[in-house]
């Protein structure tokens, strides 16, 4: 009797999840398998040239990276040449690469001085490493920032004050407006000469800050994208936190009050522990959001200047779609997939061990 009931449950379980499973199969599992297959070929988007099996060559092109010493240019006395600023003159990395058949297909990623020597880092696809580092930096910065800001916003709009729902709506509006539209608006805000942000900075600092190039410089472009994303996404997570806050029973606050806790202690010892699940949810979803970064970059900087805002998603789309190398882009996707898999398991481990401690 019991067994039969169980299998009936099982049947209904499968029945209920079948639409989702079907969609997952069509849109996630099949593309993943196709992508894995294509990653071993040189498949192109549209081309009369035939597709060939090329083994692991795509993976080698993505991952190959080398550190090479760069020699100084010597003058006729065998001493390093010095320019007028007193810097030692080194050979150009590109010339070193081209002179050595071992480094064929490698390109300059970056060069630096260390321990009195000059080194170059060369990779077959420097843009991949740029994208990887940018994406990681971006996620590391937006996850805590969005978490803290959206929690603070949620605490603010959780007050029982007249008109507070207006603020809830105002903070939520950026999240429900199209990213393309708000990105264009922010491009105007970031305009170095006439943008509101620089004008405002200049006014409130009495001219001490007044000129930041924002999207126009490799040093500030990623930061500008991060600030925009925090503004864009915090409203959504504020609503999630708000839901969590309203789930906390009123009597716990009262109990805290009776015990003489001040508001800060209430936050730290009552609110945050009760929000644990919400916080975990926010951390995981905002990291997903971070790794998928594409739209705002495509609109605002197209990955520039100098690749400083190139993301893994963008690099994949560029290679597969715009440079028409589907096989290569599939391989990037697979590498990206493995990268995220490792991160996910790490995150899982962290949350699990915390769980054990509790």
């Amino acid at each position, binding site marked *: 009797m019991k067994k039969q009931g169980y299998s009936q449950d099982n049947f209904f379980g499968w029945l209920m999840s079948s639409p989702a499973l079907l969609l*997952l199969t069509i*849109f*996630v*599992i099949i*593309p*993943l398998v196709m*992508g894995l297959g*294509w990653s071993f070929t040189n498949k*192109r*988007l*549209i*081309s*009369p*040239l035939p597709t060939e099996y090329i083994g692991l060559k795509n993976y080698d092109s993505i991952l190959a990276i080398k550190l090479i010493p760069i020699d100084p240019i010597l003058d006729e006395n065998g001493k390093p040449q010095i320019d007028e600023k007193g810097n030692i003159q080194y050979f150009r990395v*590109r010339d070193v690469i081209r002179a050595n058949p071992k480094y064929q*297909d490698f390109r300059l990623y970056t060069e630096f001085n260390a321990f009195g020597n000059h080194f170059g880092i060369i990779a077959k696809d420097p843009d991949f490493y740029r994208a990887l580092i940018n994406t990681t930096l971006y996620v590391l910065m937006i996850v805590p920032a969005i978490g803290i800001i959206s929690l603070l916003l949620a605490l603010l709009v959780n007050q029982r004050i007249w008109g507070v729902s207006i603020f809830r709506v105002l903070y939520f509006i950026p999240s429900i407006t199209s990213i393309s539209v708000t990105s264009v608006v922010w491009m*105007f805000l970031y*305009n*170095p*000469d*006439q*943008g509101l942000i620089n004008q405002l900075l200049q006014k409130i600092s009495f001219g001490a800050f007044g000129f930041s*190039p924002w999207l*126009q*410089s*490799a040093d500030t472009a990623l930061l500008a994208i991060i600030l925009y994303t925090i503004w864009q996404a915090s409203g959504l997570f504020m609503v999630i936190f708000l839901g969590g806050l309203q789930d906390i029973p009123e009597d716990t606050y009262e109990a805290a009050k009776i015990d003489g806790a001040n508001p800060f202690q209430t936050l730290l010892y009552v609110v945050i522990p009760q929000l644990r*699940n919400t916080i975990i*949810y926010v951390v*995981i*979803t905002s*990291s*997903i959001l971070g790794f998928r970064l*594409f739209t705002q970059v495509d609109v605002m900087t*197209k990955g*520039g*200047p*100098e690749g400083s805002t190139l993301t893994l998603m963008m690099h*994949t*789309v*560029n290679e*597969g*779609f*715009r*440079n*028409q*190398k*589907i096989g290569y*882009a*599939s391989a990037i*996707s697979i590498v*990206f*997939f493995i990268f*995220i*898999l490792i991160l*996910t398991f790490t*995150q*899982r481990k962290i*949350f*699990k061990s915390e*769980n054990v401690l509790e």
Partner: protein
Amino acid sequence: MNKRLALVIRFCVLTLFVASIAACSPAVTQAPEVTEAPVVTEAILPTDIVSAEAPIDVTLWFHGGSVGESDTLRAQVEDFNASQTKYRMTINEIPGGAAAGSGYNDAVNAAAVAGTLPDLLDFDGPFLFNYAWGGYLTPLDDLIPAELKADIFPSVLDSLKYDGKIYGIGQYDSGLALCGNKAILEEAGVRIPTSVEDAWTFAEFNEVLEKVKGVGGTEYSIDLKMNYGAGEWYSYGFTPVIWGNGGDLIDRSTYQTADGFINGEKTVAAVTWFKSLFDNGYATSTPPDDNEFVNGKAALGWCGHWMTTTYYDALKENFVLIPMPNFGERQATGNGTWVWGITKDSKNPEGAMAFIEFIMKPEEVLRTVTQNGAVPATFSATEQSDLFKKGGRLSIFGEQLARVDIATPRPITPGYPVITSAFYTALDNIIKGADIQTELDAAADKIDKDLQDNSFYPQK
């Protein structure tokens, strides 16, 4: 509680996992759906009547972006549908310009893979070679009526050939020159050239840039339309500076390498000069919008034909079109523009051609170019045009295009999409402060890698 928590965590981990897979699958931008064809009610009506009467549906894709251009085209489609009963044209406007990475090209590529291309589509000239090589355009040689072929300027027709066959037909060719604010130029006391023969020399042009700076309330000398952003405008608009200095983006004799060309001495010198326009305050790299020239913030404008109508409407008798100057070795300007092509899988190439024939009539060509300021591509339209005949407001465009030693096509190769994106990315970085030689070297490497990856784009 603990159990529930574990469940939530498991759920979240699963979500991230699934999302990461979704994020990893090759991102294919969904092709905009073709406007659904009206259902022909064949079933309820006697078939013999309907098959004789019902118009054949023909679909058309058009790049959006310019309101004036798309309004004109929509009107032309309506008129075409009203003028005959055999075909019914449906228009689908897709946002984004020509550059690799802008919406329109992505949509066309996606549709080509998915097999959902329309019968007729437009594309920017140099992309023709890639599309034709990729095999999704049909040669037009057998479809074009002889009179139409004879009416199109041979130089335009030649530029639309790949592997000896015609793959595109356009109503007009593009014009690129300088627009001037006459009042400011006269106040600054500079000579205004009136024909291609007396264009500014390089030294003179540099002098002009210095002289007009700040005159008549301007903030800088020339508006370079940098608000278009890194894209085809950089390649179309600014490679003439490189050609004019004797450089190029690729070795045109073989199309096998870009090394020594896009990063060659002459190109580097030209780009260095171009960068100096910003460093010297002659131009801004961050204009807030499209109206710097109209608002009188600049005395000159780097001027594509599509801006001339707006500029003329704003400046009236102060508007003057000035030929491209000499950039060191010679005068240079670009050519090539958006043209129409018929797709390989089109079921109604005759219907598509009927529409092309319709819009190539002199009155329709004139209707388009009067709106967008481009140079008519047919003899018949040019004869009837007030704007382009000798002494007309835009005659400079025609004069430049007639001179093969001035008007230069962008590289003629299926590899063009990568050439242009490598170049405009490099130029964008350079304008924002990157090292010129390093950036152009990287562009050369990118182009050469693409050429190798595609076996140097062999012709069939």
